[in-house]
């Protein structure tokens, strides 16, 4: 009976909300110059090196700084903690560092911080979560107090892109003392906002850093406080947004965002993001789903899914169908020459029959977000005779199950840490890293060549070849890019960027 009661209460509550609260709220944020931001996942750690969820990236860019900054409007690289840099040889970059920058705890920023951070993250035993972001670093050395050299293991053309994104600089004295655990308990960076209160799994409060250095390409923040609450339930987030309890939510599903547009106190802003959606298929030697080792089955799966319709109807504005596992704006990403699979359920059934599954087959699918899209995928697979068991998990649990080789099919999304280079996308899933569940050495070698060659043409050719093999052998199902819908209080001025990064430091009130 408890379920019924819950349903009854909920529907009553929603009616009350709709009739009572419209129009009365939303002044709270502006009046105390605070943005209340609700997000559905909590990071495993606030330290940007020890989580790989979007909210971690968002907090990372607000609390910490990077050596280089990529202007999201022009994609131009600007000096942030570095003022100038030059390529010394194929594997060496030299940086002049900014003087007079202070971390939130008063520690002065200098070459030691850069050297310590780079050397710390480059060591595999320190277990940075996304190795792709850091494994290219060999070492860093101090030339003088404001000059460092960073050496890469191999020629690594995308280095500046990484140094402007996920590779933040930690204060060396503090970090040495407290380590990643302490940096999570009491985070200290040099960014435009500092953490003033953090309750793991529940909320984190960022306050404007009044001493933020004036020459930073990130403008001085205007909003005094960002109150981030982790609210896993989308309905609660929406209720809070309607009633003015939160000022900013993101990743709102298309249908709900369209409905919220009707609420006068709210505005809906959307745009395409770099986040790609795809399905992985476990073809490893010891795969729990041996059927997936058959190329025909994999092709049948791709043919079964009507990506065009999904994009048009349930994914939303700004999304596009992909044919390769990377985002089109990323350097080296292309679908030239790659096999494209049209929606063709008849052919799909045909292929399954050829492969000996005329009576259908049963597969597990793991997923962690956009459940309505997962269910559409399941519906399409069901229509050609593939029954699925859905395991809808938290991201960390899903990643673990993939890394352990236990997954069959995955409904995966990847935002590349907003790095505009194919090395941040394709290589992460096909370069023999933990979540690679296809492991084709030929693909790996091509990707490595692309990741480590200096000549842009060589890079492009290697990525093209790798992406072509992935598509031709149907190692994964490329689906579409994801749009992001932000719903915010109508008096906030902000812009949606394709890197899925709300930049609170440049937001202001109308």
């Amino acid at each position, binding site marked *: 009976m*408890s*379920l019924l009661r819950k*349903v009854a209460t909920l529907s009553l509550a929603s009616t009350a909300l709709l009739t009572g609260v419209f129009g009365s709220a939303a002044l709270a944020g502006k009046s105390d110059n605070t943005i209340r931001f609700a997000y559905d996942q909590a990071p495993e750690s606030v330290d940007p090196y020890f989580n790989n969820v979007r909210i971690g990236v968002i907090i990372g860019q607000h609390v910490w700084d990077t050596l280089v900054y990529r202007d999201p409007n022009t994609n131009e690289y600007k000096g942030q903690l570095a003022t100038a840099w030059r390529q010394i040889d194929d594997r060496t970059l030299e940086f002049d560092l900014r003087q007079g920058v202070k971390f939130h705890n008063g520690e002065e920023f200098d070459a030691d911080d850069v050297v310590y951070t780079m050397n710390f993250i480059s060591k595999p035993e320190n277990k940075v979560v996304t190795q792709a972001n850091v494994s290219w670093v060999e070492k860093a050395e101090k030339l003088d107090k404001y000059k460092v050299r960073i050496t890469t293991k191999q020629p690594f053309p995308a280095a500046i892109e990484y140094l402007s994104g996920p590779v933040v600089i930690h204060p060396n004295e503090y970090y040495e003392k407290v380590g990643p655990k302490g940096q999570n308990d009491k985070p200290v960076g040099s960014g435009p906002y500092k953490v003033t209160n953090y309750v793991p799994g529940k909320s984190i409060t960022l306050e404007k850093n009044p001493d933020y250095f004036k020459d930073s390409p990130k403008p001085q923040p205007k909003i005094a406080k960002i109150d981030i609450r982790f609210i896993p339930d989308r*309905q609660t987030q929406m209720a809070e947004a309607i009633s003015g309890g939160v000022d900013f939510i993101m990743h709102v599903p298309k*249908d709900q965002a369209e409905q919220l547009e009707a609420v006068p106190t709210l505005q809906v802003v959307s745009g395409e993001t770099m986040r790609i959606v795809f399905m992985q298929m476990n073809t490893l030697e010891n795969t729990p789903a041996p059927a997936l080792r058959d190329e025909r089955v994999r092709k049948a799966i791709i043919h079964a899914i009507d990506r065009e319709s999904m994009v048009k109807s349930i994914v939303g504005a700004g999304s596009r169908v992909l044919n390769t596992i990377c985002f089109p704006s990323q350097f080296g990403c292309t679908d030239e020459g790659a096999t494209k699979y049209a929606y063709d359920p008849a052919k799909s059934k045909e292929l399954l029959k050829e492969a000996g599954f005329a009576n259908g087959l049963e597969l597990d699918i793991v997923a962690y977000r956009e459940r309505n899209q997962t269910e559409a995928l399941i*519906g399409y697979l069901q*229509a050609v005779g593939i029954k699925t068991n859905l395991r809808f998990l938290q991201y960390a649990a899903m990643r673990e199950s993939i890394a352990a080789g236990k997954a069959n099919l995955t409904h995966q999304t990847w935002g590349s840490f907003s790095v505009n280079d194919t090395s941040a996308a394709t290589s992460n899933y096909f370069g023999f890293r933990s979540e690679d569940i296809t492991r084709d050495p030929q693909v790996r070698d091509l990707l490595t060549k692309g990741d480590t060659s200096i000549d842009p043409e060589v890079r492009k050719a290697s990525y093209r070849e790798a992406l072509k093999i992935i598509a031709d052998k149907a190692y994964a199902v490329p689906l579409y890019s994801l749009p992001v819908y932000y719903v915010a209080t109508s008096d906030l001025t902000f812009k949606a960027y394709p890197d899925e990064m709300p930049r609170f430091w440049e937001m202001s009130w109308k």
Partner: protein
Amino acid sequence: MTDIALSVPTIPEPSPTMRLVRRFLGQKAFVIGAGILAVIVALAILAPLLAPHDPYTQNLALRNVPPFWYQKGSWLHPLGTDQLGRDYLSRVLYGARISLLIGVSVVLISGIIGTTLGLLAGYFGGKVDMAVTFLVTTRLSMPVILVALAVVAMVGGSLWVVILVLGLLKWDRFAVVMRSATQQVRSLDYVAAAEAAGASTTRIIVREVLPNIVPHLIVVATLEAASAILLEAALSFLGLGVQPPLPSWGLMISEAKAYMFFSFWLIAIPGSALALLIFAINLAGDGLRDVISPEGRA
């Protein structure tokens, strides 16, 4: 003489069956409950004939169509469509099958386990009774929903896993009621008579005791069926029960949750269906108890 004989009105003696039928019909609660239940069962069985569409066919071009009484609705999809464009009426009809299947199968499994244990404990008493009582206590100390969640999370959810888990967990009430009912019957004269006549233990349990506790069994079964259906809905709502795209009412409520603010019918329709079914089963069960138990007889 003949005149007088004719003038005596003959009162026909009703047969025992007729008396039972009348007693049932006298119970309004039972009539209403059983009536609704019969309709739902009929709808479920005839779903393939009645459903206007295939409940699995998704049509992304026709998503979130409201029911017919809205301006944008149409009779093509009387109750509208869900977020993947599947016909809602068809899914609700097929959902009844899942709920009833769960209710009946769980009661079958748990009923067999519970009744066997209860009969043994009640009939033999002593050590057997102690062992069964211990089992029941152990079982009662485990919260059903928690154990079910844990098991389903470990082995993965599917219709049969849910049925098995609930069936293997929900036998406690059967065991308790059957045990005390058997204890009562055990001391009655006809059991003693059967023993004196040299009937075997099995024969006494199956032929003398069991038929006389069946009424209790039926009442417990209705209660348990209702609770199993609710538990399945709860598990599916949490994403750990029946797998999509199967049209389980709990799953439909869970999927509709995202649309609650602006399209309440998506959650209200399967919710009411579920409420109605549970209501009907409980009403029928209650009425049945009143009809069967001597205290309830007028």
